[in-house]
């Protein structure tokens, strides 16, 4: 069954016809061509399909597209519109990836983390990012990048970055 829904993705509203059983992940990739949103496990475990819905990280593979109507959906494409976002720059500076399949999910989860908790401890970073898997094993560098991004985003450091 098809349903016409109004989705708001990266600030742009668009009416799309979606099958009721399609996930937001399917629709973001097929209709919106947002290929930063990736299917890893398909069961909410790996974090590769992370998007922000109303500012909160969720697994787009577990969210029916029809039920995301009229909510603010953000993918990593919206982060770097005016040059790299400080979190992205920190990931680049620390080479916090190898194949980069997991990177968009890590970036968005980090963004949500730093909005909730601007100065997390390494333990808090681990707890928040525990559900994002990097099969290349770049965790140490990701940790460095997240902590560095937190420093860069502190208001006192805004001019320094």
């Amino acid at each position, binding site marked *: *069954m098809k*349903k016409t829904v109004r989705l708001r993705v990266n600030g742009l509203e668009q009416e799309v016809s979606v099958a*009721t*059983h399609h*996930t937001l992940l399917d629709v973001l990739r097929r209709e919106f061509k947002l290929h930063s949103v990736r*299917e890893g*496990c*398909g*069961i*909410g*475990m790996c*974090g590769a399909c*992370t998007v922000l*819905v109303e500012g*909160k*990280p*969720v*697994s787009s*593979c*577990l*969210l*029916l597209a*029809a*039920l995301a109507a009229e909510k603010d959906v953000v993918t990593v494409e919206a982060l770097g519109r005016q040059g790299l976002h400080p979190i992205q720059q920190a990931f680049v500076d620390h080479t916090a990836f190898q194949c980069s399949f997991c990177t968009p999910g890590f970036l968005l*989860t980090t963004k*949500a983390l730093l909005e909730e908790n601007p100065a997390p401890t390494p333990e808090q970073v681990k707890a*928040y990012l*525990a*559900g*994002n898997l990097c099969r290349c094993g770049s965790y140490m560098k990701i940790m460095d990048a997240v902590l560095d991004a937190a420093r860069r985003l502190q208001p006192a450091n805004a001019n320094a970055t």
Partner: protein
Amino acid sequence: MRVFFGMRDIDILEPRSVEEAVAALAQHGDEAKVIAGGTALVLMLKNQLVSPAYLISLGRVPGLDGVTYGAGVGLRLGALASIRQAETSAVVRQHCPTLAETFGKVANVRVRHAATVGGNVSEADYASDPPCVLVALRARAVALSPRGRREIPLTEFFRDFYETALAADELLTEIVVPEQPAGARQSYLKFVTRSSEDRPCIGACAWIDLDEAGVCRELRVTLGAVAGKPQEFAEAEALAAGQRLGPDLIGQVAQYYAEHIDPLSDARGSAWYRRRMAAVFVRRAIEQALGAGGEV
């Protein structure tokens, strides 16, 4: 994984009030599934474990996401409060820190943001953390149907794997965690055998009410993830009443649980292993509860 949801067409209904939701459920009953966060149900749909004709989404139903505390009532967790809300709620942390921590142990932060308290309880997943703690706290589920409102003690709510006491036309609207006695302290230990964000191999909750002299008035121990529903053995708990909880007595209770559970085998541990770990984690949960919530 491009597994789609079988051939059946699903219609999504989006009631705008609790009354509309109850009416929709009454009308479609067995043909419908209620969906909130969807983290469990979408998985079941993908794997064709359920194939409803209707999904009744609670996403537009207002007023069911409160997390409040009332003196004499206890904590009231709206069915649509997210697991994350319950985990980070100041009133849950203040009045029942163990419960807040338990919600914080569910899956990962994405699932906790999307999944709801009501969804977690009504799914009745055997390998989920909150049910066994909520049973130990003697929480109650509030259910609405055209026949009215009823409260179901969680000790009777969980029936078996994914089976609850909810009738087909009943909507879970709230979980009430009653005020706990002043001397009560709890612990919840989640034992995982794979990665940190995995479901538990064993979840052990100990709830202990001590008098001023440190003598146990009442002990409750619930074990999650070992069987179809949280396991509790009154005979073992009774051993502790009126006693000081020393190593021998704690060991006896732990041994009773290990011997009397009928453990399942799954990817997180065999029945043999679960039985042995049950003895360890019942003991540790009691020890930890004794060390928490005031001097002993």
